[in-house]
């Protein structure tokens, strides 16, 4: 492995990088303009219905509306957000700017696992981070949770409200973030649940941990409530994890993730190894929580799952987010604009089923220019330089965008 001249670890800030939506006007700004709120909500409800493949229930709508009212409550009049900002122009729950992660290995090797990632996730919105295994997406999740190994260096920021997750201490992360402000839906529920204890006892323990509740009957009620929220059947609460099907184990893990009532849910490959209908059910359940005004960041290599659940899609290649797009435009017309995203989608068995030639580059040995160049059929000499990241696509020669109306233009 050849070692490259060391790049400065805080990757040069590339302004206007692949960020859609642009930052909301003010931190913590709630959207206030009534007409816009209404329109946005209806839009959200429509999207929700379309995503889950079933009409959004009246109850869910009311629930969403209530949450909305509470959130919008004390806000003072602010200028309306710029057209096309965020799911509904709301202040993001999570705002990531210039996030980079480097691993330092013995012998001076450096692995550029994540480089200069920019994105937001708003309440009531699902962002899917997609890419192949080893592209850096799980490292990004670990960085947000403060779970990187000791040899990792980070740069940039990841704001959850006022808190920068990258600089927050482990004590803060353990006490106030994980489980409380970020609910983690794990990759393998079987590994996440304690095998020797019933789901009820684990749920009650998590309630006690997160709420400080000690009263036995209150714990019992709260645990049952948590189970209900994740549609975990109450008559299975006294079972052990191994007595549950994969789908129910996933719901049990989701129930635990929801207890802290975290505004942000982070799901890392939540559907790996599940059957297609279980995948559909799992992501539909996640979508319900989004429609109840949570923000969801889902990390997945499963494009069908991403298409089903996401409002927006961020494509990661060799540690960089190379495209950030509305899910409808990405999976439907006009389709992705980055050659890698195109290739990934075309590889699906219901599309052309053609693999992208070659292999992804080693994260310890990235080229100076576009990391996709050796595999790209649009590459030119220009691609030996890092593509500008001024629009939604980090590419010198993106697939041309069809003419769009001004409101559709991002960034």
């Amino acid at each position: 492995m050849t070692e490259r001249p060391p790049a400065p670890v805080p990757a040069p800030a590339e302004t206007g990088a692949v960020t859609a939506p642009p930052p909301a006007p003010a931190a913590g700004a709630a959207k206030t303009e009534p007409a816009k709120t209404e329109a946005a909500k209806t839009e959200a409800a429509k999207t929700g219905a379309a995503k889950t493949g079933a009409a959004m229930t009246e109850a869910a709508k009311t629930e969403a509306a209530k949450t909305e009212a509470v959130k919008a409550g004390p806000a003072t009049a602010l200028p309306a957000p710029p057209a096309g900002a965020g799911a509904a122009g709301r202040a993001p729950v999570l705002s990531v700017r210039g996030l980079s992660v480097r691993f330092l290995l013995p012998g001076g090797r450096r692995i550029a696992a994540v480089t200069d990632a920019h994105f937001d996730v708003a309440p009531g919105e699902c962002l899917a981070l997609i890419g192949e295994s080893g592209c850096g997406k799980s490292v990004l999740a670990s960085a947000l949770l403060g779970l990187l190994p000791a040899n990792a260096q980070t740069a940039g920021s990841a704001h959850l409200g006022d808190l920068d997750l990258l600089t927050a201490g482990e004590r803060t992360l353990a006490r106030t973030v994980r489980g409380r402000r970020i609910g983690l839906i794990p990759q393998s529920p079987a590994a996440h649940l304690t095998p020797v204890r019933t789901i009820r006892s684990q749920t009650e323990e998590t309630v006690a941990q997160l709420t400080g509740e000690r009263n036995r009957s209150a714990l019992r009620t709260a645990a049952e409530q948590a189970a209900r929220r994740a549609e975990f059947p109450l008559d299975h609460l006294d079972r052990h994890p191994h007595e549950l099907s994969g789908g129910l184990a996933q719901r049990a893990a989701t129930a635990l993730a929801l207890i802290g009532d975290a505004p942000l849910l982070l799901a890392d490959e939540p559907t790996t190894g599940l059957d297609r209908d279980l995948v559909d059910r799992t992501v539909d359940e996640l979508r319900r929580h989004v429609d109840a005004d949570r923000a969801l960041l889902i990390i997945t290599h499963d494009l069908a799952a991403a298409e089903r659940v996401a409002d927006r899609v961020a494509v990661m290649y060799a540690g960089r987010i190379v495209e950030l797009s509305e899910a409808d435009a990405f999976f439907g017309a006009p389709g992705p604009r980055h050659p890698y995203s195109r290739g990934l989608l075309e590889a699906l068995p219901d599309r052309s089923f053609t693999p992208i030639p070659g292999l992804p580059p080693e994260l310890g040995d990235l080229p100076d220019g576009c990391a996709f160049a050796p595999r790209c059929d649009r590459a030119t000499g220009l691609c030996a330089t890092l593509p500008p990241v001024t629009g939604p696509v980090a590419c010198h020669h993106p697939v041309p965008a069809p003419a769009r109306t001004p409101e559709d233009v991002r960034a």
Partner: protein
Amino acid sequence: MLELHAITAGYDRRAPVVRDASLTVTPGEAVGLLGPSGCGKSTLARVAALLHRPASGTVVLDGTSVRHYRHRAPRAQRTAVGVVFQQPRLSADPRLRLSDLIAEPLRATGRRASAPARVAELADTVGLTPDLLTRRPHEVSDGQLQRACLARALVLRPRWLICDEMTAMLDASTTAALVRVVEDYRTATGAGLLAVGHDQTLLDRWCDRTVHWDTVTSAARKTPA
């Protein structure tokens, strides 16, 4: 032909996960076996790969009944079947470099001398670079390791391939790439394929025909072999 007749198999005699399953793959044919997780299809795949002795029923491989399984199976039968599993990390010896991993079946059958040339050829086929061949499993991604596992399955030039959820953990492009490797191999050699999975779109696109787990087991019930 690869014939599975009235196979009952499992890990607990009182509660077999496969009951009375029958399925036939003709030479050169690609059959997809579709079923939900936990239905027993992986156990049936292990029986077809001669890795699991069924409690009852028979496997007939190219006209010869299989009497012994696993390491006790006669070499001619063992080497006629190549198998790839869902989780490359569970099926790859973590101590071996990828080149040794691919060559393992050659060493086990005393064809060590042909290993370097054959490994180089297969690495090229499955898209592994010489640099990756020197690494151990924990130093490569799931996709790269699965490429190595597929190369290992092909190294003895089997007449039959069993792919049990081979691509379930992989991204779309790696999936398409590995399926193409299998299909190129089958075109070149006329090998038959049993691809077990839960993704109907994938199996329909990949295979000549896709059979559902229910029909494999209930058809057998109606017309016992």
